[in-house]
């Protein structure tokens, strides 16, 4: 009796795990399908660039404040922590390099992507989810207007264009924040701060790799936000869950991708 109950519990557990796995794989496939359809129907986003430009305003320009303020504080904290460690080894002049490399290689693309997922990603998911709930996407379909070409693709390209620019701004403002703490506050030599940075930050190995990362994160974060909105059940609860999933999945994807990309970049 006990043995058969145990067997039943294990069977139920395995069935549950199997169902969850199938659902995950199905969602992955549906997401990939949406990605390819978005690429196929992207012509409209460039032929009528004002559609994309409008989305760049909402996703990019409207995210500027949070990006700039965060970058400023991140740069300042980096300078403080960096100085604390570097001075023990008598190399506090290298603080400029430390701040710049940390920002350009890692923190710029990663923190921008995380902030982008929280600010613009959730807005995209909620907007598309609500469009679905209020039958706006169905209305578009019934008017013979393809929602992927008209709604999804312009938002996708807006994200892909905006995020690398936001990441570059993040790094620039972060360096400025680091400078303000390191030079006027702590008293590191201004010339040493800039010249060490100029000598040790490589365009190919550091800046280009940072840009590549931010483009990859942009594709991932924007696509996750779009898919979650497009796939959200048309209820208030469905949209709310989809918005939460956007932040969680985007954040984990960005951090995972960052490790993979960094590994490849170190090898190459």
């Amino acid at each position, binding site marked *: 009796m006990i043995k058969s109950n145990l067997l039943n519990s294990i069977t139920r557990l395995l069935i549950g795990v199997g169902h969850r796995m199938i659902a995950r794989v199905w969602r992955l496939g549906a997401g990939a399908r949406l990605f390819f359809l978005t690429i196929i129907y992207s012509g409209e986003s460039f032929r009528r660039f004002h559609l994309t430009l409008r989305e760049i305003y909402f996703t990019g320009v409207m995210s500027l404040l949070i990006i700039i303020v965060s970058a400023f504080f991140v740069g300042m904290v980096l300078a403080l922590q960096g100085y604390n460690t570097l001075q023990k080894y008598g190399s506090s002049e290298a603080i400029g390099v430390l701040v710049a490399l940390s920002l350009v290689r890692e923190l710029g693309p990663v923190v921008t992507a995380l902030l982008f997922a929280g600010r613009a990603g959730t807005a995209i998911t909620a907007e598309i989810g609500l469009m679905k709930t*209020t*039958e706006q996407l169905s209305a578009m379909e*019934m*008017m*013979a*207007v393809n929602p992927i070409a*008209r709604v999804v693709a312009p938002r996708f390209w807006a994200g892909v264009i905006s995020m690398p620019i936001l990441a570059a701004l993040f790094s620039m403002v972060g360096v400025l924040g680091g400078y303000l703490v390191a030079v006027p506050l702590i008293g590191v030599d201004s010339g040493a701060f800039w010249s060490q940075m100029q000598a040790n930050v490589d365009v190919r190995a550091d800046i280009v790799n940072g840009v590549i990362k931010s483009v990859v994160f942009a594709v991932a974060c924007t696509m996750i936000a779009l898919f979650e909105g497009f796939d959200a059940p048309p209820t208030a609860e469905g949209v709310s869950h989809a918005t939460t999933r956007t932040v969680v999945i985007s954040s984990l994807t960005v951090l995972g991708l960052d490790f993979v990309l960094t590994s490849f970049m170190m090898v190459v």
Partner: protein
Amino acid sequence: MTSNIVEIDNLSFGYKGRLLHKGINMAFPRGKVVAIMGGSGSGKTTLLRLIGGQIKPTQGEVRVDGKVVHEQDRDGIYQLRRKMGMLFQHGALFTDLSTFDNVAFPMRELTDLPESMIKDLVLMKLNAVGLRGAHALMPTELSGGMARRVALARAIALDPCIIMYDEPFAGLDPISMGVVCDLIRSLNDALGATSIIVSHDVKETFLIADYVYFVADGVVAAEGTPHDLMQSTLPFVHQFVHGEKDGPVPFHYPAGNYQSELLKQRL
């Protein structure tokens, strides 16, 4: 050219193992206002989605202008949809666009008309629904009745041959209901279109419909002119038309024994 612009033949549709429609046959003659009525959950709106090609039937076929809808590829379905206009239950206006831009949307997306002509056409459509003066308002600034009328102006933006209405009277005050009711009939006659109304508002629908289908339990339970159906002695039609609480459609959802459920510790 057949006299029916839309024909439904032996249509069955279901999902998750449950059949919603079981062999439905309907015909929608050109120039007429035809209503599909039935209780909530009887699959009326699903029929509109099948006509529009948003879902595929399990069996049977829907023909629009002689073409089998589910056999068309994406471009073919879009070509058919250009002949259709649809009014959604809550209007489905694009909330980021003004009233003017909502009505202009299909013209801008599907035609190469110059902006000056689009402006004139939009104002004409809005004038037809009595809302020319509201062209600058956003959807959030419109009342339910006004939103429904703007959606109607958008549905007729490209002068479709088929106009589908999903619960056009739901949630409207009596004045708005009268206005929408009158608009459906007058626009149908002015455009020479065919209107398909899905509704459960008997009074308003019977006032404007030329022919009515009653759907119940997945089949066409009754059909005829509003006058015929008012006189019908069929129990279901009688209960529905006269709004009686009990009849073939029971008041109670199927349940177990009342007394034993009350005595149980847990449900």
